[in-house]
């Protein structure tokens, strides 16, 4: 199983430095969650992990090798990325969309091998989409659509899956559904999952490893219990809060407040 890390990674847009000299190792076979305020660079960091962004300095190390030394296709066999709000080709069916995940394994000659068929079937089964397989993606609900995209990354058969805010625009029930699915995949298939999440409480519940991105670096990282403290939330999000253990799961629960401080 491949590992992912960064060595003095510096990322910038035009002249503005977004991430500065970051050294970080993300644990194999675990769920890592990146948190941070809007515009702190967590999505940018995720993009650079997927080789979508060239670092100004330093490197992303995938499986011991600089990711920019590898070909686009080689990276695609080790790592899958699901960006925020992806758009599907018009009229494409769920099965066709999931089949696109097999692209890095196909060639002009070989476009639907036995393995392709098996992996697509498995991906549809894992995401519970078999009955919806022939529906157009446009006709699915938000939660189903997100499952279809996740199925596509599963068909890609990679050890690492990166997701940028996979729960945005989903209602609470579908957020939980997607996160449960990702955790199942992590536990059963031993996939390394790295995602950006906005909801701190859900992030704490599903993360094995948490990284708070702030001031152009990994401001804090470790288990959610270690990372999410009242002072961290104040520094990173500029927000007052109380942190109490979740009465149900025991993971940290953040209760934010603005000007109305409870007595």
């Amino acid at each position, binding site marked *: 199983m491949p590992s992912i890390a960064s060595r003095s990674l510096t990322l910038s847009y035009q002249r503005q430095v977004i991430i500065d000299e970051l050294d970080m190792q993300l644990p194999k076979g675990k769920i890592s969650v990146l948190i941070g305020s809007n515009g702190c660079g967590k999505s940018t960091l995720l993009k650079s992990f997927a080789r979508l962004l060239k670092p100004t300095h330093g490197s992303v190390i995938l499986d011991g090798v600089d990711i920019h030394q590898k070909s686009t*296709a080689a990276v*695609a066999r080790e790592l899958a*990325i*699901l960006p925020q709000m992806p758009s599907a080709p018009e009229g*494409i069916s769920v099965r066709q969309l999931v*089949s696109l995940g097999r692209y890095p394994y196909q060639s002009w000659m*070989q*476009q639907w091998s036995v393995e392709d068929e098996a992996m697509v079937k498995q991906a549809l089964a894992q995401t519970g989409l078999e009955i919806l397989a022939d529906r157009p993606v446009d006709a699915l609900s938000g939660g189903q659509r997100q499952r279809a995209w996740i199925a596509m990354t599963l068909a890609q058969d990679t050890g690492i899956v990166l997701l940028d805010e996979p729960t945005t625009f989903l209602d609470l029930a579908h957020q939980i559904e997607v996160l449960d699915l990702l955790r199942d995949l992590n536990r059963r298939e031993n996939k390394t999952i790295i995602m950006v999440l906005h909801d701190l409480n859900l992030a704490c519940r599903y993360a094995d490893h948490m990284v708070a991105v702030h001031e152009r670096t990994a401001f804090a990282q470790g288990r959610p219990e270690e990372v999410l403290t009242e002072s961290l939330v104040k520094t990173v999000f500029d927000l007052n809060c109380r942190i109490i253990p979740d009465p149900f799961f025991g993971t940290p629960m953040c209760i934010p407040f603005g000007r109305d401080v409870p007595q």
Partner: protein
Amino acid sequence: MDKLMTVRCGGFSRRINLSTLLRLVLALALTLLVILCSLSLGKVNLSPLAVLRILFSSADPSLTFIVEQLRFPRIFLAALVGAALSVSGLILQSIIRNPLASPDLLGITSGASAAAVLYLSFFSVALGQQFLPVAAMLGAGLATLAIYLLAWKQGASPLRLVLIGVGVSAMLTACTTFILVFSPLTTTLSAYVWLTGSVYGASWPEPLALGGWLLGICPLLVLLARQVMVQQLDDSLAQGIGVRVQWLRAGLLLVSVALAGAAIAWGGAIAFVGLIAPHIAKRLIGPGFGGQAAMAALIGATLVMLADLAGRTLFLPLDLPAGIFVAVLGTPFFLYLLIKQRH
């Protein structure tokens, strides 16, 4: 539901959609029927059977001349022009990810037009008409290259391509009008026919030249077919599944210019085919570039052949440019498909 068939043989494997195949066979039959009708009708009306007799055995030499030397090359040219414009539009719609994209919108047509009018005004007296297609293709290529380079900003994004394409296109159209205003009347007339798009007076060398060119592009199309669909995903997703997005986009743009540029060079600036024929094809055939491209080619060919047939038969003895009738014929059918789909 679509019926899928899997073909595997050694290192070769494909998934084939049987309903797509069936629809393509039907469309091919329709296209052949339109060819036969076009060969039969004109100033001299023949029966389809008589046409078949002329083609496959011997007949009256004057009738043979009408069918084989006057009508056939013209019909053949119309079919090739329509097919090339339509496939070009289909590719453009997928790389721009915008259903309104077409060779007309993206400056390919206006580049060719500006160059053609320039040639007709200043060079045709000295060099003759035979280099007009070269000038038009050059214009199409240069306009697209300019648009691509202007759109470049750490890669060429679809949105920048379409915005700059529309801008450059408007500018070139203004240039064309400007040149026309200052040209002598005879030049203006021939330029106007060219700008509308006409296959009038085509003889065998023209469809053969265009056909040869298109045949040369076909292998590229077959090679890139697999990649057109993934190109429609977001850039980051496409790259995430292993596509070299910028290379692919440049390659596909080149293919679509080669197709549309050549079609316009020999058939004139026939508008609307490149927009409407791919849409009709997409309504008839589900996602997947191979099937859609084949269907788009057949629809485009049929549309221009019918437009030319209307142009040369409806207002006899006048012979009107095919370009006039493309929209008249294509739009109702397109609207019918849209309305049918609403229910």
